[in-house]
């Protein structure tokens, strides 16, 4: 009897210890992630900043999440969902036994509380003007209710095809209702979610520290600790990576790529980005009211040269709006190849045989969709000059630049867009729908046919039909040429060689759950 107990005990011990040790090879360690700027708020609903999102997605989770390698959606805090026949009522079945980091159990009430906090102005935790994304993520929601502890029913005002993708965005992640009650308006400094990492501390403009959530429902992450470190200068950050003070860095100067590739201790990760860089021409201001002028300027710019030489192959030329990495891209679209002769001819037809004078607005610092900052404007200016268009460059500070861009004070201005939810609607409707004049549509482009196609696509749940609508809309848009279509940048990151499992997600979010250190 005693032997049996002993054997049973031994087996039990083995069962407990063995998986732990095989797992132990990957477990442990601190990962230091270097980046150019700090987060602004760590509540999922209180920010639009990508730098906040990279922290939020590791602390919080939503009802659904993106697959590891694409923007397709898979279950997360909801295990399954159903749509009613009219496409308006969505019923989600929730995962059981999940706890927030503060111990609060996750339930349908938590989901409803969080939606109410954002959508109901009467809710005591509603914060006026503090939820910048809510109109985009949840604007189409009419009603929400907890059917029972683990079932949530959401009713939409009208059919909205990208709804599920919105739910997978960082901005739709769900914080602990008890934390929201405890911290009130300060909740953005105290992130409490259900995710694989728990928040420890935030030293502004320096570091944010997370530790492993031992009780994570999907099993503990490999890393013990993740530190987000702010180092503004790209070159300095790379030097710290070379010295081993950082494990991962993003924001790399195009001309430093060779140096990273030559370094045996570093790995360069590359992936097509979900973004577009463009030069918006104000379609309501002459001479850009004339389609031929806009097309001419598209032919005048050599995007291949810009991508290859100026951006050092960090980008691919754009032939349209939707990037090649995204569903909704039109491979048959050839865009505008470099053809200065045709540009001159079109300008002459439009009544500008000797070109014209205009201003070209630019911002100084590099951005994710433009790794070279105002150099891009210099290059474009030079191409324009060759077809007789004399563009004066005006550089403005980023805040003013955006405000004046929204107000439409520019003639031509450089802009770009990083996709939020991996849906073409998020590019085409947001950037070129006439409902979004100023806010997203900085070319002030209006084409009734395009507007109709985009609205129809929002209400079409059939993927194939939707794709057809988007391709049709894009062909019209490219022909109308409200932008000079410039480039789609690649996502780039450099890691130390011993960082394993780190992947670049199309949304530019970074998930540290399956990352481990081979040390």
């Amino acid at each position, binding site marked *: 009897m005693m032997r049996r107990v002993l054997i049973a005990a031994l087996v039990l011990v083995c069962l407990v210890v063995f998986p732990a040790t095989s797992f132990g090879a990957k477990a442990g360690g601190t990962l230091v992630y270097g980046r150019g700027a700090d987060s602004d708020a760590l509540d999922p609903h209180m920010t639009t900043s990508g730098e906040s999102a990279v922290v939020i997605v590791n602390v919080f989770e939503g009802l659904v999440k993106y697959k590891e390698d694409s923007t397709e959606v898979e279950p997360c805090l909801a295990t399954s969902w159903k749509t009613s026949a009219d496409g308006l009522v969505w019923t989600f079945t929730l995962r059981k036994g999940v706890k927030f980091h503060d111990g609060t159990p996750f339930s349908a009430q938590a989901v409803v509380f969080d939606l109410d906090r954002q959508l109901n102005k009467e809710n005591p935790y509603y914060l006026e003007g503090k939820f910048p994304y809510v109109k985009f993520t949840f604007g189409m929601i009419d009603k929400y209710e907890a059917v029972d502890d683990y079932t949530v029913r959401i009713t939409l005002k009208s059919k909205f095809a990208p709804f599920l993708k919105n739910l997978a965005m960082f901005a739709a992640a769900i914080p602990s209702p008890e934390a929201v009650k405890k911290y009130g308006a300060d909740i953005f400094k105290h992130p409490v979610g259900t995710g694989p990492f728990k928040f420890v501390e935030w030293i502004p403009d320096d570091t944010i520290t997370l530790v492993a959530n031992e009780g994570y429902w999907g099993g503990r992450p490999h890393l013990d600790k993740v530190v987000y470190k702010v180092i503004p200068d*790209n*070159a300095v950050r790379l030097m710290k990576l070379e010295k081993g003070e950082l494990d991962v860095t993003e924001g790399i*100067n195009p*001309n*430093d790529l*060779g*140096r990273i590739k030559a370094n045996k201790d570093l790995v360069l990760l590359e992936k097509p980005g979900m973004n577009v860089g463009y030069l918006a021409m104000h379609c309501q201001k002459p001479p850009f009211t004339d389609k031929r002028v806009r097309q001419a300027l598209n032919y005048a710019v*050599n995007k291949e*040269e*810009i991508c*290859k*030489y*100026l951006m050092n192959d960090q980008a691919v030329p754009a032939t349209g709006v939707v990037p090649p990495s995204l569903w909704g891209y039109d491979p048959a679209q050839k865009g505008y190849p470099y053809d200065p002769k045709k540009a001159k001819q079109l300008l002459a037809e439009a009544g500008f045989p000797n070109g014209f004078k205009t201003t070209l607005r630019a911002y*100084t610092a590099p951005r994710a969709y433009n790794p070279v900052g*105002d*150099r891009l*404007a*210099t*290059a474009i*200016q*030079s*191409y324009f000059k060759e077809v007789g268009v004399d563009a*004066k*460059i*005006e*550089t403005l500070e980023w805040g003013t630049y955006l405000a004046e861009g929204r107000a439409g004070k520019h003639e031509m201005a450089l802009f770009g867009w990083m996709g939020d939810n991996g849906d073409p609607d998020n590019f085409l409707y947001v950037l070129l729908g006439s409902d979004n004049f100023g806010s997203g549509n900085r070319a002030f482009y209006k084409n009734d046919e395009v507007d109709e196609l985009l609205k129809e696509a929002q209400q079409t749940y059939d993927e194939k039909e939707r794709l057809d609508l988007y391709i049709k809309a894009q062909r019209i848009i490219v022909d109308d040429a409200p932008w000079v279509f410039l480039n789609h940048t690649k996502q780039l990151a450099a890691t130390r060689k011993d960082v394993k499992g780190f992947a670049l997600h199309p949304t530019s979010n970074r998930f540290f759950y399956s990352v481990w250190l081979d040390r």
Partner: protein
Amino acid sequence: MADRASLQNAPARPGSQERPFLAAVRRFRKNRTASMGAAICIALALLAVFAPLVAPYDPVKQSFRDQLRPPCADHLLGTDEFGRDMLSRILYGARLALLVGFVAVSIALVAGVALGVVAGYFGGWVDNVIMRVMDVLLAFPYILLAIGIMAILGPSLVNVMIAIGIVSVPEYARVVRSSVLVVKGEDFIEAARAVGATDRWIITKHVLRNCLGPVIVQATLSVGRAIINAAGLSFLGLGAQPPTPEWGSMLNAGRPYMFDAPWITTFPGIAILIAVLGFNLLGDGLNETLDPRLRQ
């Protein structure tokens, strides 16, 4: 400032200008510092004026296929990230540097001298008001004040000249005022007054002429500083807008390429150094030749 203050004792010799002027030229030519400064400045001016003839390429012509070439036979100082010839850009940059230097100094000179003369000559509350305003301007760090003015005016090369001009006004006002105070007490001013000369006549015929020495020195020295400050403002993105080949903005543009294409930053830096050195040497030389105390 000590050497300039000493100029207060410059003897005033109205009426006999020809001979001291020649003597000054003779002293200037003998002075090594001065001649070297003058040589640099003249060379710089010639290169700037004849830049279109000397420069091998169009300074704003972009040619990506030639980007980031190190110095070679085709491109003596290499090319930048747009494939533009650095030598041509630096030569055209000399035009802008000199233009900014002279225009900024002229603005400061005219305003500063006028204020200084008025303050020094009339004294009393006029003096007080003018000089206290100048003190306030002086209390701001030079470049910070210039950045502030640029923020109001907006980024452009013309505004850089205005900003640097405004910022330099107090120095001229001070130098001129102190010279005026000395000159004012001289006998010949008394004499002129006694004969019934008007203030205007006294100021233009006597006072201004006798302040000329220190003002010339101050102006020459501040051309160099105006050049370096203009480059600084352009480096910060406040001055020349692309693709203007301005030295400061060239320096800034080359920053990300410092490791693999150091020539983009090195040569504009050297150009700034030489220009500023030239004007400083010239200024010091002038000071030595014009200041009676430093004469042997």
